[in-house]
């Protein structure tokens, strides 16, 4: 059912997109303009599809809003491995995917890749580390490695399918714990070692779930929140055990 709907929307979009593609060289579209994070959000599959007027490699880059993470180097103290000083990294996107129809290094030269920000290093361009000086000098490399291992950053040289001379598509699986905000999706067409066309898309991740609102209140009004939760725990525990005792006795 789902695939049918996707194919239908693909066909619909294409009739409209064809005319524009002649001028731009590349037109892309998203299967969903926005994603709503409900309480039962377990991730979302997004389809990026479009047409290209020239032959060449299609590159799709998705970058989410930033989210702070903490890094800590394991250090050895005697026989024990303990956490070293904590370094907070701010400004690094929570999620970054670089998908292309052929490996990026084949499609574009190093300078061109850098110019268009088509490397994971470039994704960390706005990031900064805050912690004791010298605690983790190689935090960029460590962050990239950890993010890639957790699947939050991904480079896939065969992630974009070229369906025929014009059509392309790629599937992006967003995980469950993604930040809300505007996601930037850039689509490039590379030919002869240069970018010949590009298109920009926006994906809005909306509507924080009840849990996320709760977390925000817990941070912004922490004392009121703490008092409320603790008193709720007290009342809940008391009433539950009184109720249960009454129930078992009856």
């Amino acid at each position, binding site marked *: 059912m789902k695939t049918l709907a996707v194919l239908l929307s693909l066909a619909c979009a294409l009739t409209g997109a064809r005319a524009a593609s002649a001028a731009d060289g590349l037109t892309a579209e998203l299967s969903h303009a926005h994603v709503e994070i409900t309480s039962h959000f377990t991730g979302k599959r997004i389809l990026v599809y479009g047409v290209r007027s020239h032959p060449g490699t299609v590159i799709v880059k998705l970058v989410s809003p930033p989210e702070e993470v*903490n890094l*800590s180097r394991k250090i050895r103290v005697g026989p024990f*491995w303990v956490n070293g000083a*904590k370094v907070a990294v701010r400004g690094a996107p929570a999620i970054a995917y670089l998908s292309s129809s052929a490996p990026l290094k084949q499609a574009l030269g190093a300078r061109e890749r850098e110019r268009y920000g088509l490397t994971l290093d470039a994704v960390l361009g706005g990031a900064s580390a805050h912690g004791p000086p010298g605690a983790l000098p190689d935090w960029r490399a460590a962050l990239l490695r950890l993010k890639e291992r957790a699947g939050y950053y991904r480079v896939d040289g065969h992630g974009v399918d070229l369906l025929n001379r014009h059509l392309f598509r790629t599937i992006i699986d967003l995980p469950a714990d993604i930040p809300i905000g505007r996601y930037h999706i850039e689509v490039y067409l590379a030919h002869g070692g240069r970018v010949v066309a590009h298109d920009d898309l926006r994906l809005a991740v909306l509507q924080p779930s009840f849990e996320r609102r709760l977390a925000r209140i817990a941070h912004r009004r*922490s004392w009121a929140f703490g008092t409320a939760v603790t008193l709720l725990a007290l009342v809940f*525990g008391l009433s539950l055990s009184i109720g249960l005792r009454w129930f078992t006795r009856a």
Partner: protein
Amino acid sequence: MDIFLPLAHVDVNLWLILSFGGIIGLLSSALGVGGGFLLTPLLIFSGVPPIVAAATSATQIVGTSAAGSYSHLRLGNVDVKMAVPGLLGSWVGASAGVWIARVLERGGHFGTMVSFVYMIVLTTVAVSMFWESVNAMRRRGAGSAEAPGAATGFTSRLPWQTDFPVSGVRHSVLLPFGLGAAVGLLPAIGMGGGFVLVPLMIYVLKMPTKVAVGTSLFQLVFTTLLVSIMQAGLNHAVDPYLALLLILGSIFGVQIGTRLSAMLPAEQLRLLLAVVLIGVSVKLLIGLLSMPHFPVTMSAGVQ
């Protein structure tokens, strides 16, 4: 069925958390130990960040021990006069404990500290439980013949000597205050501290066992109440879903434990718990000794 814990920022299995609560409730009713010292490591093993595990354990203790404390109060097992200086002391200790936790968490060392402290405490508790239950099984009905000794010279020279009629003892109010302050440090790392406070009340304050248990539990509710509020206020570490699920599980555990204790001798349960605690200590030790797969760890940042 997995649920997302909004403050811990992790997915956990609903039934696993409910069963953790159940085990803790069962232990507290069948053996009279709070079980907080088992809950925090279990939560950490399930992927909950150490600071959230410790803070939410304190919240869970509030909910689980409130009812028990109330029935002790009604039965007259609470020495309120003794509990007041004890509680003031434990509030001082608890505030210090949460501040220490905050400093350690900011520096990224809280998890390591928790592993070390739990390893030491759990091993000590397990060894003493093992010893106790072996002794009890050997004696079987001989009755504990240890007569309380006379008050030592040092404590009788402290100022503000007061009569505590419910316990039938005379002490300086500084004594329960000091003990409360020392034991009050523990809830900041998720331990109730009843397993330390009850023996101290019996052997140092010479309180009758029943009154010691009741008064300790009464103090515990209000100590963990403050710790829970402070942990949320300062460290943003109390997860509401986790707390309520643990309380729900533990209240049912208490009901099962009450029935179970009528069927199974406490010594055997104690022995079983000692084995479990040793297992948890060993797992913590392995975690500290084994080489990490990757030398840097990543955790969700606090906004």
